[in-house]
Protein backbone atom coordinates (compact mmCIF):
# COMPACT_ATOMS: atom_id res chain seq x y z
CA UNK A 1 0.00 0.00 0.00
CA UNK A 2 2.72 2.56 0.83
CA UNK A 3 4.36 1.89 -2.55
CA UNK A 4 1.08 2.50 -4.28
CA UNK A 5 0.62 5.72 -2.36
CA UNK A 6 4.12 6.87 -3.27
CA UNK A 7 3.52 6.03 -6.89
CA UNK A 8 0.32 8.08 -6.91
CA UNK A 9 2.14 10.94 -5.26
CA UNK A 10 4.89 10.87 -7.91
CA UNK A 11 2.30 10.81 -10.67
CA UNK A 12 0.54 13.79 -9.15
CA UNK A 13 3.79 15.73 -8.87
CA UNK A 14 4.57 15.01 -12.50
CA UNK A 15 1.13 16.17 -13.52
CA UNK A 16 1.58 19.38 -11.56
CA UNK A 17 4.96 19.93 -13.17
CA UNK A 18 3.54 19.51 -16.66
CA UNK A 19 0.55 21.65 -15.86
CA UNK A 20 2.13 24.44 -13.84
CA UNK A 21 5.85 24.28 -14.60
CA UNK A 22 5.92 26.95 -17.28
CA UNK A 23 3.76 29.32 -15.30
CA UNK A 24 5.77 28.94 -12.10
CA UNK A 25 9.01 29.40 -14.01
CA UNK A 26 7.63 32.59 -15.58
CA UNK A 27 6.70 33.98 -12.17
CA UNK A 28 10.10 33.08 -10.78
CA UNK A 29 11.76 34.65 -13.80
CA UNK A 30 9.76 37.81 -13.19
CA UNK A 31 11.18 37.84 -9.69
CA UNK A 32 14.87 37.27 -10.46
CA UNK A 33 15.29 38.09 -14.20
CA UNK A 34 17.53 35.07 -14.55
CA UNK A 35 16.39 32.14 -16.64
CA UNK A 36 18.77 29.58 -15.20
CA UNK A 37 18.26 30.61 -11.65
CA UNK A 38 14.48 30.52 -12.05
CA UNK A 39 14.73 27.06 -13.55
CA UNK A 40 17.00 25.89 -10.72
CA UNK A 41 14.50 27.21 -8.20
CA UNK A 42 11.70 25.35 -9.95
CA UNK A 43 13.67 22.09 -9.96
CA UNK A 44 14.69 22.52 -6.34
CA UNK A 45 11.11 23.08 -5.25
CA UNK A 46 9.88 19.96 -7.06
CA UNK A 47 12.71 17.87 -5.61
CA UNK A 48 11.71 19.00 -2.13
CA UNK A 49 8.09 18.29 -2.95
CA UNK A 50 9.03 14.71 -3.76
CA UNK A 51 10.27 14.26 -0.20
CA UNK A 52 7.19 15.71 1.42
CA UNK A 53 4.38 13.70 2.95
CA UNK A 54 1.39 13.29 0.72
CA UNK A 55 -1.25 14.68 3.04
CA UNK A 56 0.82 17.55 4.42
CA UNK A 57 0.28 19.77 1.37
CA UNK A 58 -3.13 21.05 0.39
CA UNK A 59 -2.21 23.25 -2.54
CA UNK A 60 0.79 21.85 -4.39
CA UNK A 61 1.17 24.76 -6.78
CA UNK A 62 1.20 27.36 -4.04
CA UNK A 63 3.63 25.25 -2.02
CA UNK A 64 6.04 24.88 -4.95
CA UNK A 65 5.87 28.58 -5.76
CA UNK A 66 6.56 29.59 -2.17
CA UNK A 67 9.47 27.15 -1.76
CA UNK A 68 11.00 28.25 -5.06
CA UNK A 69 10.67 31.93 -4.18
CA UNK A 70 12.30 31.35 -0.81
CA UNK A 71 15.10 29.43 -2.51
CA UNK A 72 15.64 32.35 -4.89
CA UNK A 73 15.87 34.75 -1.98
CA UNK A 74 18.39 32.56 -0.18
CA UNK A 75 20.52 32.26 -3.29
CA UNK A 76 20.34 35.99 -3.93
CA UNK A 77 21.55 36.62 -0.40
CA UNK A 78 24.44 34.21 -0.68
CA UNK A 79 25.67 34.87 -4.18
CA UNK A 80 27.24 37.93 -5.61
CA UNK A 81 24.96 39.49 -8.17
CA UNK A 82 27.91 40.24 -10.40
CA UNK A 83 28.81 36.59 -10.84
CA UNK A 84 26.61 35.36 -13.60
CA UNK A 85 26.92 32.70 -16.25
CA UNK A 86 24.19 33.86 -18.62
CA UNK A 87 26.60 35.51 -21.02
CA UNK A 88 28.55 32.30 -21.23
CA UNK A 89 25.31 30.39 -21.90
CA UNK A 90 24.37 32.86 -24.62
CA UNK A 91 27.55 31.85 -26.42
CA UNK A 92 26.72 28.18 -26.13
CA UNK A 93 23.25 28.62 -27.61
CA UNK A 94 24.49 29.83 -30.93
CA UNK A 95 27.57 27.68 -31.40
CA UNK A 96 26.53 26.31 -34.78
CA UNK A 97 25.27 29.54 -36.27
CA UNK A 98 26.93 32.58 -37.78
CA UNK A 99 29.41 34.15 -35.32
CA UNK A 100 28.22 37.65 -36.23
CA UNK A 101 24.63 36.69 -35.53
CA UNK A 102 25.68 35.14 -32.24
CA UNK A 103 27.49 38.30 -31.29
CA UNK A 104 24.48 40.45 -32.16
CA UNK A 105 22.15 38.11 -30.33
CA UNK A 106 24.36 38.10 -27.28
CA UNK A 107 24.57 41.86 -27.22
CA UNK A 108 20.84 42.36 -27.71
CA UNK A 109 19.88 39.76 -25.08
CA UNK A 110 22.25 41.35 -22.66
CA UNK A 111 20.67 44.76 -23.22
CA UNK A 112 17.14 43.43 -22.86
CA UNK A 113 18.06 41.48 -19.74
CA UNK A 114 19.67 44.54 -18.24
CA UNK A 115 16.61 46.64 -19.04
CA UNK A 116 14.21 44.07 -17.64
CA UNK A 117 16.13 44.03 -14.39
CA UNK A 118 15.51 47.73 -13.97
CA UNK A 119 11.75 47.25 -14.11
CA UNK A 120 9.50 46.63 -11.14
CA UNK A 121 8.37 43.09 -10.37
CA UNK A 122 4.80 43.92 -11.42
CA UNK A 123 5.96 45.15 -14.82
CA UNK A 124 8.19 42.14 -15.39
CA UNK A 125 5.36 39.84 -14.34
CA UNK A 126 2.96 40.97 -17.05
CA UNK A 127 5.70 41.08 -19.68
CA UNK A 128 6.81 37.54 -18.90
CA UNK A 129 3.27 36.16 -18.84
CA UNK A 130 2.50 37.82 -22.16
CA UNK A 131 5.71 37.25 -24.12
CA UNK A 132 7.21 34.16 -22.48
CA UNK A 133 4.00 32.21 -22.03
CA UNK A 134 1.97 33.96 -24.73
CA UNK A 135 -1.01 34.51 -22.46
CA UNK A 136 -3.95 36.61 -23.57
CA UNK A 137 -5.15 39.58 -21.54
CA UNK A 138 -8.25 37.64 -20.52
CA UNK A 139 -6.24 34.76 -19.15
CA UNK A 140 -3.91 37.11 -17.32
CA UNK A 141 -6.87 38.93 -15.82
CA UNK A 142 -8.21 35.61 -14.51
CA UNK A 143 -4.86 34.65 -13.07
CA UNK A 144 -4.03 38.04 -11.54
CA UNK A 145 -7.56 38.69 -10.33
CA UNK A 146 -8.13 41.94 -12.18
CA UNK A 147 -9.90 43.23 -15.26
CA UNK A 148 -8.78 42.88 -18.87
CA UNK A 149 -8.51 46.64 -19.30
CA UNK A 150 -6.32 46.86 -16.21
CA UNK A 151 -4.04 44.20 -17.65
CA UNK A 152 -3.81 46.07 -20.96
CA UNK A 153 -2.97 49.23 -19.07
CA UNK A 154 -0.28 47.49 -17.03
CA UNK A 155 1.17 45.97 -20.19
CA UNK A 156 1.21 49.30 -21.95
CA UNK A 157 2.98 50.98 -19.05
CA UNK A 158 5.42 48.10 -18.70
CA UNK A 159 6.31 48.31 -22.39
CA UNK A 160 6.77 52.05 -22.10
CA UNK A 161 9.09 51.69 -19.12
CA UNK A 162 10.98 48.94 -20.89
CA UNK A 163 11.47 51.20 -23.90
CA UNK A 164 12.85 53.91 -21.63
CA UNK A 165 15.27 51.43 -20.08
CA UNK A 166 16.27 50.10 -23.49
CA UNK A 167 17.06 53.61 -24.60
CA UNK A 168 19.31 54.01 -21.60
CA UNK A 169 21.35 50.94 -22.53
CA UNK A 170 21.79 52.07 -26.11
CA UNK A 171 18.83 50.69 -28.07
CA UNK A 172 16.84 53.39 -29.83
CA UNK A 173 15.13 53.92 -33.15
CA UNK A 174 18.37 55.08 -34.75
CA UNK A 175 20.30 51.97 -33.79
CA UNK A 176 21.20 49.86 -36.82
Amino acid sequence: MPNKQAHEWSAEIEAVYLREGREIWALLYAQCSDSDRAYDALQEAFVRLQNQEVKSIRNIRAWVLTVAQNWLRDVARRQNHAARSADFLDNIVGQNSDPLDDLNKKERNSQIRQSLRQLRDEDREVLVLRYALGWSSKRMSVALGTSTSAIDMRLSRARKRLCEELQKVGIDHETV
Partner: protein
Amino acid sequence: MKPFDTSGMLENNDELESVLRDYFQQEMPPELLEIPEVSDEEYEKRFMQMPRPDISSPDRFEKRQHRQFTISLLIVGLCVCLMIGFSVSRFLKTDHVPVVNNSINQLKPNQPTENASDSKNLESAESVAVIDQGDTPLEVSDQKNVHESIDLTLYNTEHGPIEQRTEISWTNITFQNHKTGTNMEMSMPELTIDFVPVSKARLSLINEEENGNEQ
Protein backbone atom coordinates in the same frame (compact mmCIF):
# COMPACT_ATOMS: atom_id res chain seq x y z
CA MET B 1 13.80 43.77 -40.52
CA LYS B 2 16.99 41.81 -40.07
CA PRO B 3 17.01 39.14 -37.35
CA PHE B 4 18.88 41.25 -34.82
CA ASP B 5 18.27 44.69 -36.16
CA THR B 6 16.88 46.86 -33.39
CA SER B 7 16.09 49.84 -35.60
CA GLY B 8 12.49 50.86 -35.21
CA MET B 9 12.10 48.57 -32.21
CA LEU B 10 10.98 51.31 -29.90
CA GLU B 11 8.75 53.04 -32.42
CA ASN B 12 6.56 50.07 -33.20
CA ASN B 13 4.88 47.89 -30.59
CA ASP B 14 4.81 44.92 -32.96
CA GLU B 15 8.56 45.12 -33.44
CA LEU B 16 9.12 45.32 -29.70
CA GLU B 17 6.75 42.42 -29.05
CA SER B 18 8.49 40.33 -31.67
CA VAL B 19 11.87 41.00 -30.10
CA LEU B 20 10.56 40.23 -26.62
CA ARG B 21 8.96 36.96 -27.75
CA ASP B 22 12.20 35.94 -29.37
CA TYR B 23 14.12 36.88 -26.25
CA PHE B 24 11.88 34.94 -23.89
CA GLN B 25 11.89 31.91 -26.17
CA GLN B 26 15.64 31.82 -25.76
CA GLU B 27 15.45 32.44 -22.06
CA MET B 28 12.97 29.67 -21.32
CA PRO B 29 14.55 26.28 -20.60
CA PRO B 30 14.04 23.84 -23.51
CA GLU B 31 12.36 21.33 -21.22
CA LEU B 32 9.63 23.82 -20.38
CA LEU B 33 9.25 24.84 -24.00
CA GLU B 34 8.18 21.33 -24.81
CA ILE B 35 5.27 21.39 -22.35
CA PRO B 36 2.04 22.00 -24.28
CA GLU B 37 0.01 25.03 -23.28
CA VAL B 38 -3.66 24.62 -22.35
CA SER B 39 -6.40 26.78 -23.82
CA ASP B 40 -7.77 29.84 -22.04
CA GLU B 41 -11.10 28.15 -21.30
CA GLU B 42 -9.45 25.10 -19.83
CA TYR B 43 -7.12 27.24 -17.76
CA GLU B 44 -10.01 29.33 -16.44
CA LYS B 45 -11.99 26.22 -15.56
CA ARG B 46 -9.01 24.70 -13.77
CA PHE B 47 -8.23 27.99 -12.05
CA MET B 48 -11.72 28.19 -10.59
CA GLN B 49 -11.42 24.68 -9.19
CA MET B 50 -8.08 25.32 -7.50
CA PRO B 51 -8.13 26.61 -3.90
CA ARG B 52 -5.88 29.61 -4.49
CA PRO B 53 -6.61 33.26 -4.00
CA ASP B 54 -4.11 34.64 -6.48
CA ILE B 55 -1.47 33.59 -8.96
CA SER B 56 1.16 36.15 -8.18
CA SER B 57 3.38 35.75 -5.18
CA PRO B 58 1.01 35.33 -2.25
CA ASP B 59 3.45 36.47 0.39
CA ARG B 60 3.82 39.82 -1.33
CA PHE B 61 0.12 40.53 -0.91
CA GLU B 62 0.13 39.26 2.64
CA LYS B 63 3.01 41.57 3.44
CA ARG B 64 1.22 44.48 1.82
CA GLN B 65 -1.94 43.79 3.80
CA HIS B 66 0.07 43.38 6.97
CA ARG B 67 1.90 46.65 6.31
CA GLN B 68 -1.36 48.49 5.70
CA PHE B 69 -2.82 47.03 8.89
CA THR B 70 0.25 48.06 10.89
CA ILE B 71 0.18 51.59 9.52
CA SER B 72 -3.51 52.01 10.26
CA LEU B 73 -2.98 50.62 13.75
CA LEU B 74 -0.16 53.09 14.37
CA ILE B 75 -2.27 56.00 13.15
CA VAL B 76 -5.19 55.01 15.37
CA GLY B 77 -2.85 54.59 18.33
CA LEU B 78 -1.31 57.99 17.70
CA CYS B 79 -4.75 59.62 17.51
CA VAL B 80 -5.83 57.98 20.77
CA CYS B 81 -2.62 59.09 22.51
CA LEU B 82 -3.11 62.66 21.28
CA MET B 83 -6.72 62.72 22.46
CA ILE B 84 -5.78 61.36 25.89
CA GLY B 85 -2.92 63.83 26.20
CA PHE B 86 -5.14 66.72 25.20
CA SER B 87 -7.85 65.69 27.64
CA VAL B 88 -5.41 65.25 30.50
CA SER B 89 -3.79 68.61 29.84
CA ARG B 90 -7.16 70.33 29.80
CA PHE B 91 -8.24 68.53 32.96
CA LEU B 92 -5.06 69.56 34.78
CA LYS B 93 -5.42 73.13 33.65
CA THR B 94 -8.97 73.47 34.94
CA ASP B 95 -8.16 71.78 38.24
CA HIS B 96 -5.00 73.44 39.36
CA VAL B 97 -4.83 76.81 37.74
CA PRO B 98 -6.84 79.47 39.54
CA VAL B 99 -9.35 81.23 37.34
CA VAL B 100 -8.47 84.82 36.61
CA ASN B 101 -11.03 86.81 34.72
CA ASN B 102 -10.40 89.35 32.00
CA SER B 103 -7.22 91.39 31.76
CA ILE B 104 -5.87 90.77 35.20
CA ASN B 105 -2.32 90.63 34.00
CA GLN B 106 -2.41 94.30 33.19
CA LEU B 107 -2.57 95.09 36.86
CA LYS B 108 0.96 94.70 38.08
CA PRO B 109 1.91 95.85 41.53
CA ASN B 110 5.48 96.57 40.46
CA GLN B 111 4.42 99.00 37.75
CA PRO B 112 5.60 102.57 38.27
CA THR B 113 3.02 104.65 40.10
CA GLU B 114 4.02 108.04 38.79
CA ASN B 115 0.45 108.92 37.81
CA ALA B 116 -1.22 106.99 40.58
CA SER B 117 -2.43 110.02 42.45
CA ASP B 118 -4.00 111.63 39.41
CA SER B 119 -7.05 110.64 37.50
CA LYS B 120 -6.17 108.03 34.83
CA ASN B 121 -7.60 107.94 31.37
CA LEU B 122 -8.47 104.68 29.74
CA GLU B 123 -6.04 103.76 27.01
CA SER B 124 -8.87 102.54 24.87
CA ALA B 125 -12.59 102.13 25.06
CA GLU B 126 -12.36 98.43 25.79
CA SER B 127 -9.53 98.66 28.27
CA VAL B 128 -10.87 98.20 31.77
CA ALA B 129 -7.66 97.42 33.56
CA VAL B 130 -7.07 100.91 34.86
CA ILE B 131 -8.06 101.67 38.40
CA ASP B 132 -9.36 105.18 38.61
CA GLN B 133 -8.82 106.69 42.03
CA GLY B 134 -9.62 110.26 41.07
CA ASP B 135 -12.66 111.82 39.40
CA THR B 136 -14.30 108.66 38.16
CA PRO B 137 -15.88 106.73 41.02
CA LEU B 138 -15.34 102.99 41.12
CA GLU B 139 -17.31 100.54 43.17
CA VAL B 140 -15.09 97.94 44.70
CA SER B 141 -16.48 94.91 46.43
CA ASP B 142 -14.32 92.14 47.74
CA GLN B 143 -14.92 88.71 49.12
CA LYS B 144 -12.01 87.12 50.90
CA ASN B 145 -10.82 83.57 51.32
CA VAL B 146 -12.41 82.13 48.26
CA HIS B 147 -9.85 79.41 48.09
CA GLU B 148 -7.40 78.40 50.73
CA SER B 149 -4.54 75.98 50.71
CA ILE B 150 -2.30 74.99 53.60
CA ASP B 151 0.96 73.13 53.38
CA LEU B 152 2.87 71.91 56.42
CA THR B 153 6.56 71.06 56.37
CA LEU B 154 8.65 70.03 59.34
CA TYR B 155 12.35 70.95 59.60
CA ASN B 156 14.86 69.68 62.10
CA THR B 157 17.16 72.54 63.10
CA GLU B 158 19.73 73.17 65.80
CA HIS B 159 17.07 74.87 67.86
CA GLY B 160 14.72 71.98 67.60
CA PRO B 161 11.97 71.07 65.15
CA ILE B 162 10.36 73.94 63.25
CA GLU B 163 7.10 73.74 61.36
CA GLN B 164 6.60 75.71 58.17
CA ARG B 165 3.01 76.65 57.47
CA THR B 166 2.19 77.90 54.02
CA GLU B 167 -1.21 79.41 53.46
CA ILE B 168 -2.61 80.79 50.26
CA SER B 169 -5.83 82.70 50.21
CA TRP B 170 -7.53 84.12 47.15
CA THR B 171 -9.50 87.31 47.22
CA ASN B 172 -12.02 88.07 44.49
CA ILE B 173 -12.48 91.73 43.78
CA THR B 174 -15.11 93.18 41.48
CA PHE B 175 -14.72 96.65 39.97
CA GLN B 176 -17.56 98.54 38.42
CA ASN B 177 -16.81 101.51 36.24
CA HIS B 178 -19.81 103.86 36.10
CA LYS B 179 -18.46 105.65 33.09
CA THR B 180 -18.09 102.63 30.90
CA GLY B 181 -20.60 100.46 32.70
CA THR B 182 -18.30 97.48 32.68
CA ASN B 183 -17.57 95.06 35.47
CA MET B 184 -14.22 93.54 36.05
CA GLU B 185 -13.33 90.70 38.35
CA MET B 186 -9.91 89.81 39.57
CA SER B 187 -8.45 87.30 41.98
CA MET B 188 -5.53 88.34 44.14
CA PRO B 189 -3.44 85.73 45.87
CA GLU B 190 -2.13 86.24 49.38
CA LEU B 191 0.70 84.00 50.46
CA THR B 192 1.54 83.59 54.12
CA ILE B 193 4.48 81.54 55.32
CA ASP B 194 4.95 81.04 59.06
CA PHE B 195 7.79 79.27 60.82
CA VAL B 196 6.67 78.01 64.21
CA PRO B 197 8.75 75.96 66.64
CA VAL B 198 6.87 72.80 67.32
CA SER B 199 7.39 72.89 71.10
CA LYS B 200 6.15 76.46 71.30
CA ALA B 201 3.12 75.69 69.26
CA ARG B 202 2.25 72.82 71.51
CA LEU B 203 2.66 74.99 74.54
CA SER B 204 0.43 77.64 73.14
CA LEU B 205 -2.14 75.03 72.27
CA ILE B 206 -1.99 73.61 75.75
CA ASN B 207 -2.34 77.08 77.20
CA GLU B 208 -5.38 77.73 75.08
CA GLU B 209 -6.93 74.49 76.14
CA GLU B 210 -6.21 75.25 79.78
CA ASN B 211 -7.78 78.67 79.45
CA GLY B 212 -10.80 77.12 77.83
CA ASN B 213 -11.16 74.68 80.67
CA GLU B 214 -10.93 77.41 83.21
CA GLN B 215 -13.69 79.28 81.58
